[in-house]
């Protein structure tokens, strides 16, 4: 249930970006089995190796939920298919059925499966609800809207400080920049506090984030995440990726950024009386200053 709602929230987030309100489809997530992990979907593929031995095959097991959720051609999936197609040079190549079929069976199968999920229990027991029930596809879902996502608009509404991707507001700027009268309640000391919060969060997350070192041009990877915190400092939702990129390492880097935020829990060093200030957070991971090379 919680997951369903969250999924709803995510889809909703996607919708925000799209100009049309019609695309707010509830059915989409309603029909998706949320918690089960597709255990069954490992598909087979064979390849022949040289030396007379048959080679391993690499069947992509499409993560059911992702695919199902994102009606879009899931760039991922496409890539996998390509790969599958070119890889095996001979071999029977058993049933490399169209990806769609795979998805269907995958989606269908897990259901009956007793897919034991320790999750639900956990969630119940824990005082901290949502964190556990991370919706699988946060990333993909948001990615799509990406191109459309009009940061300016969103930010204008939120009365944020304008930021042009490249020039992220420094903590200092932030402190000094008068907000557009939005924070009626915000006193000068609150602004300083905001700057302190930014510093504290930055330090914490930088200690958890592992740079995407393997990739070429890793310095060009910029990842923007959005999430909310509960008063106890735990994540209220698994971080959503707000931007997209054609960089081949983007998915991996985004995943590691999301992971860093999660692994950094709890953020219980933030002053509870100022919860309003740190409830909603947007992080911009920008390794460009680190990777001159590589």
């Amino acid at each position: 249930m919680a997951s369903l709602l969250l999924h709803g929230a995510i889809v909703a987030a996607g919708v925000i970006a799209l100009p049309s309100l019609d695309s707010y489809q509830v059915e989409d997530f309603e029909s998706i089995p949320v918690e089960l992990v597709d255990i069954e979907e490992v598909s087979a593929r064979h390849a022949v190796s040289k030396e007379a031995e048959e080679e391993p095959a690499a069947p992509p097991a499409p993560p059911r939920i992702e695919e199902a959720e994102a009606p879009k051609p899931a760039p991922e999936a496409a890539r996998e298919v390509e790969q599958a197609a070119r890889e095996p040079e001979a071999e029977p190549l058993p049933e490399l059925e169209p990806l769609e079929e795979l998805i269907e069976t995958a989606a269908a199968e897990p259901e009956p499966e007793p897919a034991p999920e320790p999750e639900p229990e956990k969630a119940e027991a824990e005082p901290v609800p949502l964190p556990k029930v991370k919706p699988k596809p946060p990333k993909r879902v948001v990615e799509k809207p990406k191109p459309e996502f009009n940061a300016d608009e969103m930010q204008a509404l939120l009365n944020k400080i304008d930021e042009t991707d490249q020039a992220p507001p420094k903590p200092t700027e932030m402190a000094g920049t008068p907000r557009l009268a939005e924070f009626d309640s915000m006193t000068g000391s609150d602004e300083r506090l905001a700057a302190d919060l930014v510093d504290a969060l930055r330090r914490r997350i930088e200690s958890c984030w592992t740079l995407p070192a393997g990739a070429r041009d890793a310095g060009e990877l910029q990842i923007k995440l959005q999430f909310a915190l509960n008063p106890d400092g735990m994540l209220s939702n698994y971080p959503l990726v707000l931007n997209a990129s054609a960089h081949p390492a983007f998915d991996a880097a985004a995943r590691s950024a999301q992971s860093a935020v999660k692994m950094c829990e709890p953020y219980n060093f933030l002053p509870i009386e100022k919860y309003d200030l740190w409830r909603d957070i947007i992080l911009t991971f920008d390794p460009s200053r680190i990777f001159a090379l590589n």
Partner: protein
Amino acid sequence: MLIASTNRVFCRLLRIMAPIALALIMAGGLAERSAQAALEVDITRGQVEPMPIALPNFLGDSPEEQQYGLDIVTVIGSNLERSGLFRPLPQASYIEKISDFDQQPRFEDWRAIAAQALVSGRLVMQEDGRLRAEFRLWDVAAGQQITGLKFVTSPSNWRRMGHLISDAIYKTLTGEDGYFDSRIVFIDEEGPKDRRIKRLALMDQDGANVRMLSDGKDLVVTPRFSPTSQQITYMSFAGGVPRVYLYDIETSQRQLVGEFPTMSFAPRFSPDGQRVIMSLQDGGNSDIFVLDLATRGTMQLTNSAAIDTAPSYSPDGRQIVFESDRDGTQQIYVMNADGSGLQRISYGEGRYSTPVWSPRGDNIAFTKMYNGRFAIGVMRPDGSGERLLTEGYHNEGPTWAPNGRVIMFFRETRGEHGGPNLYSVDLTGRNEQRVPTPGFASDPAWSPLLN
């Protein structure tokens, strides 16, 4: 509480959404702000650390399957660790003991040991006698499967299975192609310096499965891998005459490409594997030639009074990098594949030699001699961004991993009992590793991915 909090998130999103819709309708008109601004934080630093990954032994029903499970995980762990990008966590630290491949892991247990990724797997000896390996790669923080694959092969080929799984993990978690399912051809060296026996040898990228391809009677040097197939070229000095051979690893067939009395490096392949490029000496100078392997026709690309040698194609086949002393000392030059557009790209102190173009095109590796020392370095094809990755008494002969992120080379140690050994270093220069070989080894050449 659970529901309430979920609802809160949901409601807030709705609240955010409503004004946006309004704003869109009103073309940016005044919309009432209903959400608190989010706190914006820029993260510009992080930890330069290998990613912690958990690799419990793959499951199996029979002792035999369990043994394969352990062996394959060992191969994977060693591959990932040597890449410098991953840190396999010690199995003793694992809290959850994975016992069912079809069951979702307890992610809390893996978060507790700070694993960022978890690999679970299973081995099944099929009725047809083949071995099947299945694995799932889990994002521990997100609590979800990132990928899951299945491989089938003959049991004797289990190591390759480990390499293929390693590549799949590497690619998924870094976004770059892997390089573990590849091999190295090199010159195995044995015996005292003055009577050294040199044999052509082949091994897996991690040093396993060493196989000798020649018997050591004739001197062999500078093997080169075709970028498209399991073919190599090398030079043999049988009878004192340098001959270039083309050798097919899969069929063990060898054919003579030609006799080249004054050649010192074996030819390198073009990216399509159809031609080779080489330098031929004529009197005091040498020039660059292309030889079509099918027709055996040659074409001369340079014609100078200098020594032009060690040519290497760019991965798109449109350019060639080589070394020349035409300006006085050995430097690196780039020209178009037809010999036009010559341009010098190295300008640093010292002498530059054996340039090799990266398979991903963004760098050229070279050997640099200066102050009596030898370094392995890289620069961009336009000559910018020169960096030395390692240096010392004697380093030579860089060759690229298929993904263009790791370079292998050989390093000679001084002294009567000294000799060459193989090393690898990644593009950051921080991760240098000795590559295990049975004895002394030189002239490594990295294969493309096996596929």
